[in-house]
């Protein structure tokens, strides 16, 4: 799909929204208004918007613990998502699941529940692709996971089977060169993880995950390939983690220089500048977007804190099995 100015505007808005959500959640944690786990997705915006922009209702995603944009772009409401973070009855997961950290989903929006067991959903994504293929549907599955997750055996089995069966899956490897504090260099003998694709007999591509249009272009190729029955692709997107691994990580293992280098590649700032330079948007329009994002987030927070209710502790009993 050739992107119009309108598309660029929508993409920029998603990116701004994603960035501000992560910042807001971090603040809410610091203020003690939210509890649990949070892995900020500051810096990953271009990976998510570039891969998810244009997905349709036949498509599925398998989210990672990093960033919330894929879920929102699949149609999960921000108020509903955040209410899940707050463990509210009205929220995603009904207040029962660790929405903030890992495991939540909404099959009505084709969001397969994420997992707190990093990497374990890679074979599940393969299976969703198998299901789509057997049902002769046109959907594709986007599976999100990090460079750490790519070192699990599940990565090997999941990618191998997907390639063997030519399944409609795009494996989106969100490479920030760290698995908490363990660097990529310490974890593998490779520098480009996309090279692993060759070992499975599928294309492997590495893109600058801080440039949304580059991500979009390669994602579109991978999605088109998957849809046409040619099989999966491993799409490695290089991005920089702007924060510690989680809000409780002091991030003592990276140097200031490293952080500063990474932050030069700000995906939101870069795309904003491009849009303004190309006159896709005016500065005023950009400010308007920021205002709109803030408003949307504040309204969702207000809803969670003021309108939502706590679940009944006995709700824990509901839905373990199909019969009662």
């Amino acid at each position: 799909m050739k992107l119009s100015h309108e598309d660029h505007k929508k993409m920029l808005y998603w990116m701004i929204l994603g960035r501000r959500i992560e910042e807001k959640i971090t603040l809410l944690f610091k203020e003690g208004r939210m509890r649990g786990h949070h892995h900020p997705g500051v810096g990953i915006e271009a990976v998510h918007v570039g891969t998810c922009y244009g997905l349709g209702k036949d498509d599925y995603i398998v989210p990672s613990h990093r960033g919330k944009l894929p879920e929102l772009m699949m149609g999960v409401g921000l108020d509903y998502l955040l209410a899940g973070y707050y463990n509210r009855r009205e929220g995603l997961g009904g207040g029962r699941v660790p929405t903030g950290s890992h495991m939540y989903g909404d099959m009505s929006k084709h969001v397969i529940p994420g997992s707190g067991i990093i990497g374990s959903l890679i074979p599940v994504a393969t299976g969703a692709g198998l299901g789509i293929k057997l049902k002769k549907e046109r959907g594709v599955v986007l599976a999100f996971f990090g460079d750490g997750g790519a070192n699990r055996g599940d990565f090997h089995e999941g990618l191998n089977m997907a390639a063997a069966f030519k399944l409609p899956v795009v494996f989106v490897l969100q490479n920030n060169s760290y698995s908490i504090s363990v660097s990529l260099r310490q974890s593998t003998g490779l520098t480009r993880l996309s090279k692993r694709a060759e070992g499975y007999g599928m294309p492997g591509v590495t893109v600058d995950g801080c440039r949304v249009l580059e991500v979009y272009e390669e994602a579109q190729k991978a999605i088109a390939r998957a849809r046409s029955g040619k099989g999966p692709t491993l799409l490695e997107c290089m991005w920089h983690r702007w924060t510690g691994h989680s809000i409780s990580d002091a991030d003592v293992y990276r140097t200031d220089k490293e952080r500063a280098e990474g932050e030069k590649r700000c995906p939101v700032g870069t795309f904003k500048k491009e849009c303004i330079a190309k006159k896709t948007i005016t500065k005023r329009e950009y400010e308007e977007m920021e205002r709109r994002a803030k408003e949307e987030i504040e309204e969702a927070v207000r809803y969670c804190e003021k309108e939502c209710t706590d679940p009944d502790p006995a709700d824990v009993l509901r839905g373990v099995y199909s019969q009662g």
Partner: protein
Amino acid sequence: MKEITYLEAINEALFEEMEKDERVFVMGEDVAVGYGGGGVFGVTRGLADRFGKNRVIDTPLSEVAICGAAIGAALVGLRPVAEIMFADFLSIIMDQLVNNAAKMRWTLNGEWDVPIVYRAAYGAGIGAGFHHSQSFEAWVAGIPGLKVVMPSDPRDAKGLLKTAIRDNDPVIFLEHKLLYKRASGPVPKEEYTIPLGKGEIKRSGSDLTIIGTGAMVRLALDAAEELEKKGVSAEVLDPRTILPLDTELILESVKKTGRAVIVQESPVFGGFGGEIAAMLADRAIDYLDGPVKRVGSLFTPIPNWIEMEKFYLPSVEKILDAAGEVIRY
């Protein structure tokens, strides 16, 4: 009624359910053409010819991918029957079973079905050694969200598998490999199913209840014959599914007989027999005329030499010893 083997019964159940519902498909290693046409034991024989290789899928040697892919396929609307060639490999797929399959429905607020059957050949007795003989039912029976089925004869195997395939939750269906060709029995000619969570009295008696599943039921029945000769009337109760467990039937039987011996193929410590014994201590203590005894395997790896395996496994003699202790108490 017709007389068929345990293996044929499972094969018939697969045939009938695949015929009935096109969302049902089979996947696993060597299920399409392996060993002369369908699984290393021949359980899936003929399915690929009838339903094609799109519904009888040979997979790579990748248990984690088989298990995980079944979850993905179920979430998008299919009803996979995934074969784990040997139940020993449950150790490999434990993460997928416990952390993904078992929790998907609950995570999705109870609103989404996760209809999967994991079929696996378990059990010892053929000298297959410790990597191809183990009984891990107690591991999976401790996981909320899973169901665990262990049929002991052809009629139950067919009726329970049909129900498992129609069930909307993940079911671990444990087939005892010793029974595949050695156990044959009457099976209704007409369509039937057996509910999960309902045990059956395989032999009625009044002095003692022997509880067991899978291959242990045959041993229990043989022990009951021996006891009969000594004037002891033993009841043999097969829970058939250990999760959910038919506690009511067990209570009813033990309250009647006042004595219980539980036979399990895994080692005694940590087995599901302990769960039944605890339940009886909790809810039937006033009815007990003797200790609740458990008969299980030794706390060692499963030996390969067939004579050593016999020494290791529960036997009719071991059941008789336990029964004697309860009766003489």
